[in-house]
């Protein structure tokens, strides 16, 4: 077999926790120019990490994510106007302390990137962006906010971002902060002292489809390692394990969360990606709106569906999809075995006429056409807690 570990390139970027990952024996990969842990074989590896998040709690270093703050210039409202122009969701609906999923679009209605927009203050927003698109995104934001009275700051390198994910995440994090976590609803955040660090951003967000928090702490190595170690220590009673990008991918796939470069890209528009509910056409103009108007009128030519393999075989990213006659009809955007469902699942773009649940789709796996079928998504939905945080209030 061929080696699957990407050899390190000397100019790969590293998070402040790089040495921690290496000490833990993580398998490291080049992810969008970053030297990141894909899994930690010594503590069980990908499947164990995935299951830890679904059943208890796992810790991810997601410091490679970027952060852009947009706040007021001379006149109040300039930052909101800029965010509204740049992104497709309606930021005017956000309360201070609330966040939502959104995306920045090209004039063609396709994706620059998907983002989480946090409203930090009266006219003060934090956009959390993807690692692989950081430079492109910051250039895009600077270029397209020139006409607005606002200040754009790139804070990506200022934060170590840790994701504490799983049903026990709140129990764990509560031991490390005096901020009351229970009242924080899904996609809301607060500021509080965490591990002695004052004014830490604590957000009930994540990319796993599970309950969880993301915290943003200063990015120096000493502070980052201190917080990492305290979270691990505090999580010992919940059997916490460190989790890599491999589990992050299978977790988000089961929950049908989009990944840039896969389900969304500069070639795919909002309607195709099925992200309609995050796109507020009636909020006023924004970049990409006119093209989306036209695309809607023209009708869809492809749509994103969930697939489950019927035949033996694993559909993988970029494999071709065919109809019963063997004609190419689409492509897999993400595919993997699902550790929770013990099935082989995938997301794919197919013609709109083939999106009904139960429709047979054939996936070209090496020399064979393997049968799959369209299934309802998300593949996995977390069970409701007795006292459920009010989900989707920000949508």
């Amino acid at each position, binding site marked *: 077999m*061929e*080696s699957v570990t990407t*050899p390190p390139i000397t100019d790969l970027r590293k998070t402040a926790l790089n040495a921690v990952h*290496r000490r833990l024996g993580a*398998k490291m990969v080049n992810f969008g120019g970053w030297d990141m842990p894909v899994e930690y074989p010594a503590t069980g590896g990908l*499947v164990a990490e995935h299951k830890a998040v679904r059943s208890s709690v796992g810790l991810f270093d997601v410091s490679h994510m970027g952060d852009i703050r947009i706040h007021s210039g001379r006149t109040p409202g300039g930052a909101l106007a800029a965010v509204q122009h740049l992104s497709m969701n309606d930021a005017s609906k956000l309360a201070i302390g609330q966040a939502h999923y959104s995306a920045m679009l090209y004039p063609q209605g396709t994706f620059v990137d998907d983002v989480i927009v946090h409203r930090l203050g009266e006219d003060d927003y934090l956009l959390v962006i993807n690692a692989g698109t950081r430079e492109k995104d910051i250039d895009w934001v600077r270029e397209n906010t020139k006409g607005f009275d606002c200040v754009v700051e790139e804070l990506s390198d200022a934060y170590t971002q840790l994701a504490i994910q799983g049903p026990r995440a709140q129990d764990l994090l509560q031991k490390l902060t005096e901020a009351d976590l229970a009242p924080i609803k899904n996609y809301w955040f607060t500021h509080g002292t965490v591990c002695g660090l004052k004014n830490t951003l604590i957000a009930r967000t994540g990319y796993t489809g599970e309950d969880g928090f993301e915290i943003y702490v200063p990015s120096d190595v000493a502070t980052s390692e201190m917080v990492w170690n305290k979270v691990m220590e505090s999580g010992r009673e919940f059997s916490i394990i460190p989790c890599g990008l491999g589990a992050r991918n299978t977790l988000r796939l089961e929950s049908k969360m989009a990944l840039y470069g896969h389900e969304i890209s500069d070639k795919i528009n909002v309607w195709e990606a099925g992200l309609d509910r995050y796109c507020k056409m009636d909020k006023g103009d924004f970049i990409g709106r006119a093209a989306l108007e036209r695309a809607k009128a023209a009708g869809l030519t492809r749509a994103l569906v969930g697939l489950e393999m019927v035949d*033996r075989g694993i559909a*993988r990213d970029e494999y071709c999809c065919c109809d019963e006659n063997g004609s190419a009809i689409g492509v897999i955007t993400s595919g*993997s075995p699902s550790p929770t469902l013990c099935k082989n699942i995938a997301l794919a773009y197919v013609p709109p006429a083939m999106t009904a649940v139960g429709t047979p789709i054939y996936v070209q796996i*090496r020399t064979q056409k393997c049968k799959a079928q369209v299934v309802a998504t998300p593949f996995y939905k977390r069970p409701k807690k007795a006292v459920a945080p009010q989900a989707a209030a920000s949508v």
Partner: protein
Amino acid sequence: MAYPANYRYTKEHEWVELSGDVAKIGITDYAQHELGDVVFVEVPRVGAKVEAGKTFGTVESVKAVSDIYAPASGEVVEANEVLHGTPEKINTDPHGEGWLIKVKLANPADVNSLMDATAYEAYIASQSKEASA
């Protein structure tokens, strides 16, 4: 995990155990470590021909697909059916129960050109050094 002294090894991390003119073939402990949890194995049917240096099957983990290359040419005489239901045998016992196929070799002497255990261990040590540099 020790690398059996009576096996031969390839640079692509397959092992070969020769008895008479039949070669039992599998992937090494190093390879299964690199892959992670194996969830799927695809090998040729009995009677199929394999050709030295050419891919004859795949082993997949959750994250990755790896092609398996034939260390020598010949005809498949047995495939390890156990792996259909329990592909994780490749992780737990790569040099034993996790074997992939048995091949009747056209020229058994070809196996002599492969690395022995000492050479293979030196080879993977140099690979690991590269990976952690």
